[in-house]
């Protein structure tokens, strides 16, 4: 049992990255609009996050230092502060959307307006962080989030022509009437979702919450190689279900409810029930991930005591930041901003923060002083460098494309 649960950190982290509320809707929207023409971005994103999450986990296990520690150490306090402000802002926007996302999932199940659920959800998120052990939290939400796999079952049961799907995915063409800038805008949003910085903040801090050491490097790899591809698979399944069922009739996806239509059609009420559990767990997990990450990043920047491995009294500033983030997130959410729009914007902003996060990881993963004989292999460095270039290009193009395409309209 212990062995099975050992990979839940990776699964929870990846679900937060690939299938949080914004991604659930964005993946389905992209599938309905572009069919499989953007599937390659998800694959590029999976490889990138696997590469850097493995490095971040390895650094944490070997040196005991989480990612934001490294960022300040290698970039100096000024650049690190810029990254902290940017990442914290993205985190807060995402947290806002996730709390609202949990409420939206409950709305679908109960028909009670999500704004009524929202304060309850925010309180629940905070209570879990306050009272539940890190290991329990990651096991429960990592495993419950697997209910999202019902989307993959939907696609499987629909019995599509796999050959033609593969052909469409490997020979991407623009649908008639669509422009290239909008296509690339969505490409960057999907790439940003796969590589959101809070994934490595959470994953590396989680490794320290779990007291990983050199002897856990195998656990690190298992988490990374199982968790992240699984997240990517869910993302592709959402895209495929929409491409198969919603694209042919011209549905534009804007709500969580529409995302559930294919599963409901194919698997009936049981399928729907499982999927709603999946929506709930994925958004709740992502809310925990982003709320904790806001505490992790600030505390690590200043060197404060952080983490759930000590009593809250011993990490007072950390818990204050987390509590404040949840409260502010709930207040922004209650102002009835569209939670799905919020994550879509935050994805684009997170693309901008990517280089400042991944560059220090790559540098430290090569530092013998930290890593001893566990420094990067030459292949890892070559791939890491290629990805750094991709990340810089995506970061530079993100904001101009957002304005040029009116945020993908």
């Amino acid at each position, binding site marked *: 049992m212990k062995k099975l649960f050992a990979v839940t950190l990776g699964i929870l982290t990846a679900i937060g990255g690939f299938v949080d509320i914004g991604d659930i809707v964005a993946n389905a929207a992209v599938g309905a609009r572009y069919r499989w023409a953007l599937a390659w971005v998800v694959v590029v994103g999976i490889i990138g996050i696997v590469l850097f999450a493995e490095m971040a986990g390895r650094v944490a296990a070997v*040196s*005991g*230092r989480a990612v934001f*520690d490294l960022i*300040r*150490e290698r970039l*100096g*306090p*000024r650049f*690190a*502060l810029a990254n902290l402000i940017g990442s914290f802002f993205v985190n807060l926007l995402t947290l806002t959307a996730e709390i609202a996302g949990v409420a939206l999932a409950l709305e679908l199940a109960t028909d009670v307006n999500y704004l009524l659920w929202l304060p309850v959800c925010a309180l629940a998120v905070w209570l879990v962080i*306050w*009272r*539940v*052990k*890190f290991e*329990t939290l990651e096991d429960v939400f990592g495993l419950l989030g697997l209910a999202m796999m019902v989307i993959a079952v939907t696609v499987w049961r629909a019995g599509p022509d796999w050959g033609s799907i593969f052909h469409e995915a490997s020979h991407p063409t623009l649908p008639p009437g669509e422009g290239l800038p909008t296509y690339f805008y969505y490409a960057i949003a999907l790439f940003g979702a796969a590589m959101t910085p809070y994934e490595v903040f959470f994953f590396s801090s989680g490794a320290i919450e779990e007291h990983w050491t050199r002897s856990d490097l195998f656990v690190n790899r298992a988490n990374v190689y199982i968790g992240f591809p699984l997240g990517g698979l869910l993302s592709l399944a959402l895209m495929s279900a929409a491409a198969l069922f919603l694209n042919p009739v011209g549905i534009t996806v804007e709500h969580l409810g529409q995302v559930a239509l294919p599963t409901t059609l194919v698997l009936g009420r049981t399928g729907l029930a499982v999927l709603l559990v999946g929506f709930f767990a994925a958004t709740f997990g992502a809310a925990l991930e982003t709320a904790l990450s806001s505490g992790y990043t600030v*505390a690590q920047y*200043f*060197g*404060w*005591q*952080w983490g*759930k491995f*000590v*009593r*809250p*009294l*011993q990490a*007072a*500033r950390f*818990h*204050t930041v987390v*509590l404040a983030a949840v409260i502010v997130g709930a207040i922004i959410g209650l102002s009835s901003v569209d939670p799905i729009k919020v994550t879509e914007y935050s994805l684009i902003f997170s693309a901008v923060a990517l280089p400042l996060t991944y560059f220090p990881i790559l540098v430290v993963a090569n530092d013998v*002083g*930290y890593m001893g004989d566990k420094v990067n292999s030459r292949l890892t460095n070559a791939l890491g460098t290629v990805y750094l270039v991709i990340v810089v290009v995506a970061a530079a193009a993100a904001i101009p494309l957002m304005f040029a395409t009116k945020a993908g309209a």
Partner: protein
Amino acid sequence: MMAAARVMDAALELLDRQLIDCDDRLAGNVDDVEIVIPDRWPDGASGELPVVTALLSGPGVLAERFGGSLGRGWSALHRRLHPDGALISIPIGQVRDIGSAIRLGLRSDQLASNRMEVWFRDHVVGKIPGAGHAAE
């Protein structure tokens, strides 16, 4: 002791590193380093070399290092909050180990960088039920 000497790059291996106290608690970062430079060095021929005498830690110190208008503003705010101006200086003799983190021989509650932690513990987190219990 000379046998154990190793060459270090103070900027790379000391600055911005995590401090850990003797109870394994995270105790701030190295925000600056105090170096004593002998009189008339390097021409003073007395044979003495500059020596790292202390590690400095605390938001006030970090603000000084920032410089610019951000640093000045932050520094001024910090002086208002802590008019006694206590600077957090950790004598180098209290350093036990320098690695991916710097281990100290003293407890974090002896450090002034801990004052804000105490304030939030007493006024915010300590007021919430369950703060003293480990999570379940």
